[in-house]
C-alpha cells in the first residue's frame, strides 16, 4: 500500500539536509513498527521518498513524501503513530492512500513559497507593494556555475521566466507577506537564495527576508 503524506519542517529542523530529512522519516517509521517495503538489490533501502528537496535553512508547512508499506493500514492510524515518533518541528498534517503508478517526485510542477519581507520604513513598503505587479515584466539574468571535469561551466538563465506568479498576501506594519510560485521543469527550478537576491535587488529599503515553503503543486492530484 502506498501512502502520500504532507508534513512540516519547522524550527531547528530547517537545518537538517535533504538526506538527513529522509533518514529522520525512515527512523520514525521504524519506531512506529509499521514495516516499509524495501527495494531490491545489493543495498536494499525502504521505499520512502521526498517529493522535492527543500533548501537548508528554509522552514516548510507543506512537504510531501511517499512511502510504500507492506501491510494495509488505516490512514489516521498511520498519522497518529508517525506523529508520536517524529521530533519536535516535524508533524504529518495530512495523508492519503496513493493508487497512481507514477512516482510522486516525478509529478512536481511548482513550488509555492511565502516570503516575509521586512522594510526599513513605510515608504519602502508602499513602493514595494506598487512594484510587485511589474516585477516579472523584465528579464532577470542569473548565472549558474557548474563543475564539469575540473572545468567550471557557466550558464545564464532568466529568473523571471521561472516565476509563475507573485501575489501579495498581507501587510503588517513594515512587513509584507508575498506568495511566489516557482515553476519546476525538466530544466530545473530556482533556488530560494536566487529569489531572495532578486527581491533584495529589485526592491528598496529591504531589511530582511524570511522564507517558508507553503506547498508543492503536482500535475495531478497526489494527496
Amino acid at each position, binding site marked *: 500500500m502506498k501512502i502520500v503524506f504532507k508534513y512540516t519542517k519547522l524550527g*531547528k*529542523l530547517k537545518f537538517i539536509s535533504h*538526506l*538527513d530529512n529522509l533518514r529522520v522519516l525512515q*527512523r520514525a517509521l*521504524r*519506531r512506529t513498527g509499521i514495516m516499509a517495503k524495501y527495494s531490491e538489490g545489493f543495498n536494499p533501502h525502504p521505499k520512502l521518498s521526498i517529493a522535492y528537496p527543500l533548501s537548508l535553512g528554509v522552514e516548510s508547512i507543506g512537504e510531501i513524501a511517499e512511502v510504500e508499506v507492506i501491510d494495509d493500514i488505516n490512514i489516521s492510524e498511520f498519522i497518529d503513530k508517525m506523529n508520536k515518533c517524529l*521530533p519536535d518541528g516535524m508533524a504529518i498534517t495530512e495523508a492519503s492512500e496513493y493508487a497512481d503508478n507514477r512516482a510522486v517526485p516525478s509529478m512536481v510542477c511548482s513550488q509555492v513559497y511565502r516570503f516575509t519581507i521586512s522594510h526599513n520604513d513605510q515608504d519602502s513598503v508602499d513602493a514595494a507593494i506598487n512594484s510587485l505587479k511589474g516585477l516579472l515584466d523584465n528579464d532577470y539574468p542569473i548565472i549558474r556555475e557548474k563543475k564539469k571535469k575540473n572545468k567550471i561551466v557557466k550558464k545564464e538563465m532568466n529568473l523571471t521566466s521561472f516565476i509563475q506568479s507573485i501575489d501579495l498576501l498581507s501587510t503588517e506594519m513594515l512587513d509584507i507577506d508575498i506568495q511566489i510560485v516557482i515553476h519546476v521543469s525538466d530544466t530545473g527550478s530556482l533556488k530560494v537564495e536566487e529569489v531572495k537576491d532578486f527581491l533584495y535587488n529589485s526592491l528598496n529599503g529591504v531589511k530582511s527576508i524570511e522564507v517558508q515553503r507553503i506547498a508543492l503543486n503536482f500535475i495531478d492530484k497526489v494527496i
Partner: protein
Amino acid sequence: MNKHLFDEILMRVEKPARYTGGELNSIVKDKKDVNIRFAFAFPDVYEVGMSHLGMHIIYNLLNSYPNIWCERVFTPWTDMEKELRNHELELFSLESNDSLKVFDFVGFTLQYEMSYTNILNMMQLSGIPLESQNRDENYPLIIAGGPCAFNPEPLHEFIDIFFIGEGEELLPEVMSLYEKHKKSGYSKQAFLKEACQVEGIYVPSFYDVVYDEAGKISKRIKLYDQAPEVIKKRIIKDLNKSYFPDKIIVPFIETVHDRIVLEIFRGCTRGCRFCQAGMIYRPVREKSVETLLAQAELLLDSTGHEEISLSSLSTGDYSKLIELSQALLDKYEERRIGLSLPSLRLDSITFGLIERVQKVRKSGLTFAPEAGSQRMRDVINKNITEDDILGSVKTAFELGWSNIKLYFMVGLSGETRDDIYGIKEMVYKIKDAFFDRPREAIRGNFNINVSAACFVPKPFTPFQWDPQNTVKEFQDKTGYLKREIRDKKISFSYHDPKLSNLEGVFALGDRRVARGMKKAFEMGCTFDGWGDQFDYDKWLTAFIEENISMDFYNNREKGYDEILPWDFIDCGIRKEYLIEEKEKSLKGITTDDCRVNCSGCGVNTSLVGGPCFEDSL
C-alpha cells in the same frame, strides 16, 4: 543568544545540525526544577561524540535524577569556532544554549590524548579560566574521566577532579555530595576536600611532585594531609544490575556509528601486553543474554536505528556469543535490522554466524594479527599462530569473501627487520591463499587493506617502561613496508608517526608536559587528532619554548625502580605482575588467557575479593 544572529551563523557553517540540539530523546528540563547543572563535554566534533556509548549512558543516568539536568556540548568545528570568536559569543550547550560558564559541572571525557587541546579550547571559548587555581566559586567545577584519566598528570593544572575507573556509581555519589555542599553554602575547597575521600576520586591540586636532578620523580607530597596516598579505581561489580538508559538520543545527521551499540562485556581475558584497555578494565564482566536482549529492544524501539553493533574489547570471546547473536537475528532479521560484529578475533571467528549476519548487511572481514612474525606475537602475547590466521582466511575465501582488512603495529618493543618483513610475508601468503585455488573457485574482486599503527607504550601495561620508537625509526619502518608491499591488490596505509609520537608524550607524560600543551594550544593547536589540522612543528616549537624534552617521556627506557607519573593510581594490577609480564615478553614466553589459567595479576584480590570466574581457582 540572539536568534537571528544564531540562524545567520548556522547558515554559514558546515553541518549546522551539529549545533542545534532538539534531537529525538534529548532532554530539556526547567532550570527552576533542578539544582545541579551538568555539561557533558566531548572534546571532539558532534559526529564523533554522539557515537560514543559512554556519553549516552552518563547523559541519561544523570538526567534520571530529578534535581540534575545534564546537557551536551561538543567541540565546535573550526568554522563555528571562528564565528563564535568573531561575534564574541561563548560556547553553549545544545539543550539550553547557555554558556558553559553557568554550569555547576563541566565534565570532559578523556578518550584519546590527541583531544586534550580541544578541552583547553572549549574552556577558553566559554570564558572559563584554564587553570584550576584561577577558578573560584563563580566558575563550574571542571571534572574529567575515561581511559586517559589513568594518567591524569598531563592535565593536572586544568582539571579540578578526575574520576578514575567506571563512573556509573561514582558520579551520582559525587553529585549528591555536591548537592549537600550547595545547600549549606558552597565553597570549592571544602567540597574538594570532602570529594577526595570518595574512592576513585583524584584531586590533583592536593599534591605536589618533587623531581631529582635527572628530571625523574623523586617523591609526591601531599598538600592536604587528609588526601589519600593512593587512588583506587572504581568498578561496577555486576553489569546486569548497573544503570542502562531506556532510550538514547537519535541524531539528525549521520554520525560515525549510526547504530545502537550493545556493550556485551567489560574487560578482556587475553592479556595482550600492548593493550592498556585489557589491563585497566580487568576483571572481565559479562552481561547476560537476557539483559542484552532487553537492552537491545529498548534501544531499537526508541531510536529506530537499523543496525545493532556488539561492542567489547574482544567480541569473539563472549561466552554466549552464538546464543546472543542467534537470538538477535531471530528477533530482528525480519525487521531488516542488521547485526555487526566488530573486533572479532582471528582465532574465534564463527563463520556460520558471520555468514548469517552478512545476509542482512554485507561487509569486509577484519583481522588484527598485530605483528607479522610469530616471535613478535609471542612477545606481545597475541596468542595466535600463522596457521590460525591462514586457516581462517582460507575458510573465509571458500565462503566467498574477497575483501580483507588487516591491522598491524610497528615499533613494538625489541622489533627487528625480520619482524617487520614478517608483515609483508603474511600479507603475501594471504594473497597466495586466495589465488592458490581451482580457477572456478576464485570469485570476486580480491583486495587486502593493510594498516599499520605506530606503537605507543601505555601506562599500566608491561611495556610502560619501554622507549617508543622515534619518528625517524617509525618512518624507516613504514617506508620500508611501503617499498616492499607493491601489489595492485594490496593497499598499505599507516598512522602518522608524528602524531603517535605526540600521543606517546601525553600518554607517558608527567605534570610538566601540561605547560607544553598549553603553549601549543596558545599557538593555535586544536583538533590534533584530525590529520589536516595537526601541526607537528608547532608542537616542537612549543615544547622547546617551554624547555620540555619530549624524548625524556617517550623515547627513554625507564627502570623498574623509577617512580612513574601514574604510580599513585591503583588499577588493581600489581606492579610486580607487570614486571613479570615484561620479563616474560623479553624471553618470548606467553601468558595464558584468564579463562584458561589465572596468572595472578592481583585484580582478584584487590577488586573482586575472590576468583574472577566462578569456575576458576
